[in-house]
Every structure is written in structure tokens, then in C-alpha cells.
């Protein structure tokens, strides 16, 4: 196999790429023909093809959102993107790394995935371009009836469950980018956790873009049955190219009575990737849904993980960390819809901007008329590291019931000279000192992560602090 090509390893250590080796690469641009071609190649049932076409129609019809990162959104050239690329050997996901084509395996080795799998994961899925190339879950979870497959495989092997839930949380017409995803989706994870099953170790998926001008559109569906628990973690990286790539995922989650789902993301795309993702969960009676959302990379991220609290006693939480460096816009936040009585929610957002980066907290708390006795608390703090950088807050609140308690606190601060001086007066160098202040700032969220990811998060933030990544 050809040697890896390093494109830009200065700061962003995941910026390498390997030569393209593809079984199929759709022509650039999006058309009805390409949508049908993808569905056909995947041998999908007719209802899924129809779904895709609905998505395609809506995507073409909808105007570009004129908020968030609209300045950058308007510069995306949708004709210059590859919407589907299938790597050689990716007919189905392998269950052993030994079977994975060597260049792809090397890539995931460099990203540390097989190692993490051995150490602290219950299962791993690894997607390369449009297809999941590796998938595996520990045997005793399989025996308990846990399903953890790539989305395409689940459609082949469990079509009835997929048909029942697919697109029910986020319909094809939900928004322009969810529609785009629906039309060309490929890969992603499918998880089903049977009643009462508690998965102790996290399941992880890793999404890797390798090709230039790539569009990655994975689709994830998670069903946590009554009293069950799962922690799902996703990570993502891409090579640094001078042209732009697009990542537009849809994640749908259903948490049934007394179930709990935690979904953690460490988004570290290279700075040429548009990251436009729709994530939504429905939490039923006394269920808990938690989004832990770390956004460090990408050129523009627009992502507001949502929880719909559908039944009595449901609880939703969004913990969001965003770091925007030079040339980056992180437009992130969360949405909670209180649709039933006695529901509660918390949104905690911490953002850091540096070197001209912009962070925005954009959030919505909505309380339906019959959601009596609901509670919500929003806390968003922004840390701005220099005069070129900026931060905004857009907290929307829509309340249609008077018997609720809603709290909102926001702060914007700069790294204080006094804090920096205090640390330096104890012999700590300036760079280390400001890193410490930043990691202290995000600590309330990082401490929620399993240790391995907390370390990873701190390390990534440190790397971002060191330089403006190319």
C-alpha cells in the first residue's frame, strides 16, 4: 500500500490523508439520478428510496437559512461536493481489523481507535467516507440482545424496526440539511438496547473523511428500551484541504420509559469542513436524555442537539463546549421542548473564542400548554481570549404554561489579568497558565465525561490553544 501523505501536520495532527482507493465515487454534485443510484447500489426497499426522494425534493426547494453562519453557508458550492464515495472493500463492515483494507486500517490506527476499543469500549463502528468499514460489539452484549450495527446493515437485517422509527423523530422535511441527509445518507450507527439492559462501557463510532471535497452524511438511530442505558460516543476528523468538505448528519434517538441515553460528541473536523448536523431525541416517561457536545474543529458548525420531553417526568440535558479559533464559527447550543408535565431540563454551554474565532450560543426552551410544573435551567458562559474574537448569545424562550420555573444565566468574560498573574506568580509559565484557566472554565462539563475522553478533550483544547490550526 502507498505511504500516507501528510498534508498539514503543524497543529492539527489529524490532517493527514491517504491516496484515494475507491470502489465507487459518484460524480460531483447532487441530482435525483445520484439519489436513486445510491439507493439502488445499496439494494434498498422502495420505501427508503421514496424517503430519499422526499428529502431531495425538500432540500432543493428550501432556501438557505439566513441566520447562524449564513455568511459562510452562502459560500458552500453544493455542485462541488462528492455525495457518495465507497472505499474498496466496503461491501459490508468487517468485524476484525485484520480484514479492513490496510490503508484504512492504518488511518484508524493513527487515530487510536483499535487501541481505545481494546481498553475501554464495549463496541466500535468506524466509518470511512460514505461507508462503515468496521463494526464490532463485545459478545455478551450481543447475547443480551443489544444491536449495534451500521445503519445500512440494520436496514438489511432489521428492516421492520428501521421502518418503524426511521424519520419519526426528524422527518425528511425538518430542515434543509436534514433533508439533504435524508436524500443521500450512508453509514452511521443503529443501536437497540433491550429493556433493562445496562451497557456499562461506551459504544463508540468514529467518522473519518479522507477525500477532498467530500460530503459525509451518516445517519444514526438509537432506541433505548424501557429501563435500559447506553452511552454512545462519536468522534470525527478529516484531512486539511484548501477546498471545503461537508458533513451533514442526522441523529434520531428514542428513550423509552425509565431509560437513559447519553450521547457524547468530540467533533474535531479539520478547518475546511462545514458541519451542519441535526440531532434530536425523544424522552418518554421518567426517561433521561443527555447530550454532551464538544465542538472544536470545523469551519462552521451549526448544531443544536434537541430533547423532546414527551411524557411525565422526562429529563433532558445538553452540555455543550465550543472552541472557535482563527477563521472558525461555532454556532451551537441546544433545544428542549417540554411537551409533558413534571419534565425538567438543563442546558449548560461553555464557549471559548480565540484568534478571531466566533462562538454563538443559540438555544430554545419551549414549554407546551400542558407541561405544568416543568423546570428548566440554562447557563451559558463565554470566554473570549483576545480582542479579535467574539461571542454572541441567543437564548429563545417560548412558554405557554404559567406554572413553570425557568432560569437563565449568561456571562461573557475575558481571561483575567489577575488570574493569569496569580498563576504566573507561582512559577507557572504564561501559556500553561492560560491553558489552566481555560481548562478550569470547561471543567464542569469535562468532568461529566469518562476519564479517557476528559483527557482527550483537555488535550485537544490545549492543542487548539497552541496555535490557529490550518
Amino acid at each position: 500500500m502507498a505511504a500516507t501523505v501528510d498534508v498539514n501536520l503543524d497543529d492539527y495532527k489529524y490532517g493527514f490523508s491517504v491516496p484515494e482507493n475507491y470502489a465507487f465515487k459518484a460524480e460531483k454534485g447532487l441530482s435525483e439520478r445520484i439519489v436513486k443510484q445510491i439507493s439502488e447500489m445499496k439494494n434498498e426497499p422502495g420505501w427508503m428510496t421514496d424517503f430519499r426522494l422526499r428529502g431531495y425534493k425538500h432540500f432543493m426547494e428550501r432556501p438557505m437559512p439566513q441566520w447562524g453562519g449564513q455568511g459562510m453557508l452562502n459560500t458552500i458550492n453544493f455542485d462541488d461536493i462528492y455525495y457518495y464515495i465507497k472505499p474498496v472493500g466496503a461491501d459490508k463492515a468487517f468485524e476484525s481489523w485484520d480484514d479492513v483494507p490496510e490503508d484504512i486500517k492504518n488511518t484508524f490506527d493513527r487515530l487510536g481507535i483499535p487501541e481505545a476499543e481494546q481498553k475501554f469500549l464495549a463496541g466500535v463502528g468506524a466509518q470511512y467516507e460514505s461507508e462503515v468499514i468496521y463494526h464490532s460489539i463485545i459478545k455478551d452484549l450481543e447475547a443480551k440482545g443489544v444491536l449495534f450495527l451500521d445503519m445500512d446493515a440494520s436496514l438489511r437485517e432489521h428492516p421492520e424496526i428501521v421502518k418503524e422509527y426511521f424519520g419519526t423523530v426528524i422527518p425528511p422535511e425538518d430542515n434543509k440539511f436534514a433533508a439533504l441527509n435524508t436524500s443521500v445518507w450512508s453509514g452511521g450507527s443503529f443501536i437497540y438496547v433491550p429493556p433493562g439492559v445496562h451497557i456499562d462501557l461506551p459504544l463508540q463510532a468514529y467518522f473519518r473523511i479522507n477525500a477532498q471535497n467530500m460530503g459525509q452524511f451518516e445517519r444514526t438511530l438509537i432506541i433505548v428500551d424501557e429501563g435500559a442505558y447506553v452511552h454512545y460516543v462519536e468522534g470525527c476528523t478529516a484531512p486539511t484541504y484548501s477546498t471545503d468538505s461537508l458533513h451533514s448528519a442526522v441523529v434520531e434517538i428514542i428513550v423509552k420509559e425509565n431509560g437513559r441515553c447519553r450521547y457524547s460528541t468530540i467533533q474535531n473536523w479539520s478547518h475546511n469542513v462545514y458541519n451542519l448536523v441535526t440531532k434530536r431525541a425523544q424522552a418518554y416517561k421518567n426517561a433521561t436524555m443527555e447530550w454532551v457536545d464538544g465542538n472544536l474543529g470545523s469551519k462552521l458548525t451549526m448544531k443544536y442537539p434537541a430533547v423532546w420531553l414527551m411524557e411525565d417526568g422526562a429529563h433532558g440535558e445538553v452540555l455543550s463546549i465550543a472552541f472557535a479559533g482563527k477563521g472558525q464559527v461555532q454556532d451551537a447550543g441546544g433545544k428542549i421542548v417540554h411537551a409533558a408535565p413534571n419534565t425538567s431540563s438543563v442546558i449548560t454551554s461553555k464557549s471559548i473564542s480565540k484568534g478571531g474565532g466566533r462562538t454563538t450560543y443559540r438555544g430554545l426552551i419551549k414549554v407546551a400548554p400542558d407541561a405544568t410544573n416543568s423546570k428548566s435551567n440554562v447557563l451559558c458562559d463565554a470566554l473570549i481570549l483576545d480582542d479579535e474574537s467574539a461571542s454572541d448569545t441567543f437564548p429563545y424562550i417560548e412558554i405557554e404554561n404559567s406554572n413553570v420555573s425557568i432560569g437563565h444565566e449568561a456571562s461573557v468574560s475575558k481571561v483575567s489579568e489577575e488570574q493569569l498573574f496569580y498563576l504566573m506568580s507561582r512559577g507557572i509559565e504564561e501559556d500553561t497558565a492560560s491553558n489552566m484557566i481555560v481548562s478550569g472554565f470547561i471543567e464542569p462539563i469535562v468532568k461529566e465525561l469518562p476519564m479517557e475522553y476528559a483527557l482527550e478533550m483537555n488535550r485537544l483544547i490545549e492543542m487548539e490553544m497552541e496555535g490557529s490550526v490550518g
Partner: protein
Amino acid sequence: MSTSLSIKDLQVSIDDKLILKGLNLEVKPGEVHAIMGPNGSGKSTTAYALAGHPAYEVEGGEVWMDGVNLLELSPDERAQMGLFLCFQYPTAIPGISMANFLRTSYNAVKGEEGEDGKKKPIPIAEFRKKLLEKMDLLKMDKSFARRYLNEGFSGGEKKRAEILQMTLLEPKVAILDETDSGLDIDALKIVSEGVNSMLSPERAFIVITHYQRILDYIKPDYVHIMYNGQIILSGGPELALRLEDEGYDNILKSIPQNGNGGN
């Protein structure tokens, strides 16, 4: 004998306002100097300027520590040389545990340089043992190690935490800026004992205080009175007692050159 710290005609301004107007002080190893003076006379300014706070502009004069021009060094370099300031108002930093902060600081100041020129960090277990010993000495509860740096600490707890840092970093020159204020009677005793346990022929202390009380515990060799940005009177321990009796007004009147703008 060599000097620990030599301050010559130091002039310092904040926001273009001259605060220190020609400060002179010689501190030798093993000595304890007390600085007293009315509010606003420039005691904390002296401490901050010596530690290198960026808001304090040095307009003139010299400060030498062990033959090194201190004024050319950044605050962290000064600390690494062995200068330590117990802050009058320590800053809180949320999200950073005391233990993590103390270890980072310890490694920066005390870490021994390896062959690659980088400082070798102390093993965590070894540090932990050391930390617990010092905390025990200052009768601090173990739980402080897990708390965020100075966050939510009471006034007295903050002062105790400052002394804890000092005992860990074992500086050559320690400046205590009103460490006694805000301490209850027992705490004053514990903190003073902590300081006294560190007295050594190699180490010098500058104790800034308003009260004679702490000087009963920490015996000064010299007492200086600061007024309007200068040291206008120096003496032995008896000067602090005299001050307590007579008050600043009377003492100032008795100094002939005082009142002509503080040359």
C-alpha cells in the same frame, strides 16, 4: 554577607499615577523585615511590583535578587528564582483543583532539570504525601486539595492556602502582604508557626502588616515605616511597639524631613 533582595530608589506607577516614589530596602538572607504604614502608602504596590504584576509600571530604580536584575524577569521567572508573594487578596480560579494547581506550581519552581533541559515532574504519589504533610502542619482539612483554587474560600482559608503554597515552594524571599488580617486568633498562631518553621539562615521574609500582634509570633529583625511611597523610618522591633503606642501622626511629626513631598 550577600543580599537576598536589594531595592534601590524604586519608582512605580499605576495608571500613570506615581505610587512608589523612591523606595530603598536591603534584605539579607535569614532576616525578617516588617513593613508597616498607613492605608494607601504603597505596601501592596511594593509587593506587586516585586512580583512583576504587569499593571505596575516601573519608572525608575533597581531591584536585584541574588545578583540578578529582577525587573527584567517575568513573574513566573521571578517565582522560579525563589521569590514568593502571599497575596493580600488571593484570586480565585474556578475549575482548577488546589492539588492540580499546587503540583503544577511545584513542578515549575522546584522541578529538577533533566538532561534534556526540561523540568522533571515530581511523581504524583510523592507530591501527594508532601502536600498532606504541609496541610497537616497548617491544620487544613484534606478536602481543600480537591476544591477549586481559592473559590469560595473564607478570608482566613485563603490566607492559610497562601501559606500552604509558601511552605511547599520553599522560597528564598517571601513577602507576606497582610497575611495576618482576616485570621482568627488560633489561625494566626497556626500560620505564624508555619512561617516560623521556615525561618532559616538562607531565607528572608518581608512581613507587611498593620498590627503588632503578628510580630509577637514572627519576630522581625527590622521594622520599616512606609509613608507616601517611601520608607521614611526604619528601626528594630521596638519601632512597631512605639507605633502601636503613639500612632502614625506622632511618629510622622517626629521625623524632621517628612512633609516636604517625600524626596
